[in-house]
């Protein structure tokens, strides 16, 4: 095998037509879901959101708001944590997938990249990618591996190494690349910026954006880093305490005074506030 090129030419991938802006068909609709853990802990208290095909939708909110729970409700991974969708529906391509088996959700084309990377440490980089193909029945696995290496050339360099010895940034790339091996229609990304240096965050988000444009992969992006998430998303939702409190196209959110203050850390005049001030605001807002 030859080293894949790193040039910006998109690789053709069968079955994923280029996205045309504006022609937004709905891929996923979450209708007023309630999620409970262990039958008693109510975490999502009626969450609704819509993910249009081919777009990047950001789901923002502070720690503990229920963002990861929302993603797990969609991917079916709640069941592994004694959680379930108690009310509402999750419609994906005309089918209700609430409380579906995670493997069947993956087969339908939805894959979640878990928070904290969660790569298989004792497997090589290439073996990690290989696990992503377990539900595949077609023979295009080799081409897709080339596609992942095309977006993440660093993974190609490390393909024979144990993933546990990769750097944090490389592990995040691997977690995303591994999910791409599923050849998803909808990619659920949970805090890809977590614990990474700003330069790396920029690099990874640029690649995520390219994947969205070139592969036509729809993305639901959970982030605490609102600034970087809103820089790539088409629309966004803001979640607090198990509820959606703001939603709209990115331009609208960026100009919303609350979002500016609490999530982007900007004052009315648009200058950056110090982190301490923002934190104080947040605290005040919580107890109000």
């Amino acid at each position, binding site marked *: 095998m030859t080293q894949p090129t790193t040039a910006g030419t998109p690789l053709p991938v069968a079955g994923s037509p280029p996205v045309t802006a504006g022609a937004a068909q709905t891929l996923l609709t979450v209708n007023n879901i309630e999620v409970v853990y262990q039958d008693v802990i109510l975490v999502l208290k009626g969450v609704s959101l819509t993910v249009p095909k081919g777009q990047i939708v950001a789901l923002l909110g502070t720690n503990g708001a229920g963002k990861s729970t929302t993603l797990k409700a969609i*991917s079916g*991974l709640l069941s*592994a944590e004694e959680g379930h969708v108690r009310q509402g529906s999750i419609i994906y391509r005309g089918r209700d997938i609430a409380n579906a088996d*995670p*493997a069947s*959700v*993956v*087969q339908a084309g939805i*894959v*979640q*990249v*878990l928070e904290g990377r*969660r*790569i*298989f*440490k*004792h*497997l090589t980089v290439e*073996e*990690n990618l*290989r*696990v*992503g*193909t*377990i*539900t595949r029945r077609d023979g295009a696995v080799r081409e897709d591996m080339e596609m992942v290496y095309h977006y993440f050339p660093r993974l190609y360099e490390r393909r024979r190494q*144990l993933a*546990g*010895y*990769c*750097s*944090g940034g490389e592990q995040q790339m691997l977690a995303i690349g*591994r*999910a791409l*091996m*599923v050849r998803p229609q909808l990619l659920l990304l949970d805090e890809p910026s977590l614990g990474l240096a700003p330069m790396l965050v920029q690099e990874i988000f640029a690649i995520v954006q390219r994947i969205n444009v070139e592969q036509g992969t729809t993305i639901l992006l959970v982030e605490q880093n609102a600034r970087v998430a809103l820089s790539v998303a088409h629309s966004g939702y803001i979640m607090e305490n198990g509820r959606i409190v703001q939603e709209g196209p990115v331009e609208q959110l960026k100009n919303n005074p609350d979002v500016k203050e609490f999530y982007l850390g900007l004052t009315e005049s648009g200058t950056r506030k110090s982190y301490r001030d923002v934190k104080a605001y947040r605290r005040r807002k919580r107890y109000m």
Partner: protein
Amino acid sequence: MDFLLQLLVNGLVIGSVYALAALGFVLIYKASRVLNFAHGDFLALGTFVAFALATSLRLPVIPSIILTLVCFFVLGLVVERVVLRPLIGKEVIAVIMVSVGLSSVIKGIMYLVWGPGYFLFPEFLPDVPIIIGDVYLSPMHLLGLAISAALLGLFSLFFKRSTLGVAMRAVADDQQAALSLGVSVRKIFAVSWGIALVSAVAAGVVVGSITSLSTEGLSAIGILVFPAVIVGGLDSVPGAVVGGLLIGVLENLTAGFIDPLLGVSLRSVVPFIVLVLILMMKPYGLFGTVEIERV
């Protein structure tokens, strides 16, 4: 010197069988963190079933063995589905107690059907010794070694080269992450039980052909698997192989050199002495997983 060489060779032959038996044990532990105390009993039961097919039903030996292996693969899937799946997420001790119970049940069945006596597997190889240098080997020893080595090689290829095998290792590493990629963890548990019973029965048949069949003797291999896997590292397949070989060699060296001196048999005690010594020095065994920490 010749005597030493002979003991080493015998030790490697029997050790390769322990390695095969240990592999199945490690597999179940790696996938589902279940310590299977019934492993030796499945091994013994499978060997007796193959024996019964070959003697009572008068099937040819090789087809009897292959049929038994297939049946035990299926039995592994069934045991996982019926006995262990309801226990997923329960306390470790509950799962251990169930496997201990399973062990008693299987032993009981074997005593009922075959009693405590010794049986001989029908001969299917000529009994002419093969002499290499000064070392004597029976054809059965050689075949046993070849079968163990071939199966161990096959399993390691499976874990390295097949997507299912790689996914099994992934489940051992991070179950939820594997689930997120569409790996059916239940299927992985089931397959690991299937493979574990196949490896156990293969080991039992080899031992049974080399020596003899008895309920007590065969299920005792399940106990010897413990030093083998713990010496190697409870969750390491290569460790199981090295551990198995080590225990086999030590047993034979003890029987050859130490037992005649003392006039008592220490061969079955030595593996456990080694076990304790190694655990004191390396608590994760020689090859056990140590958390990878990036520098």
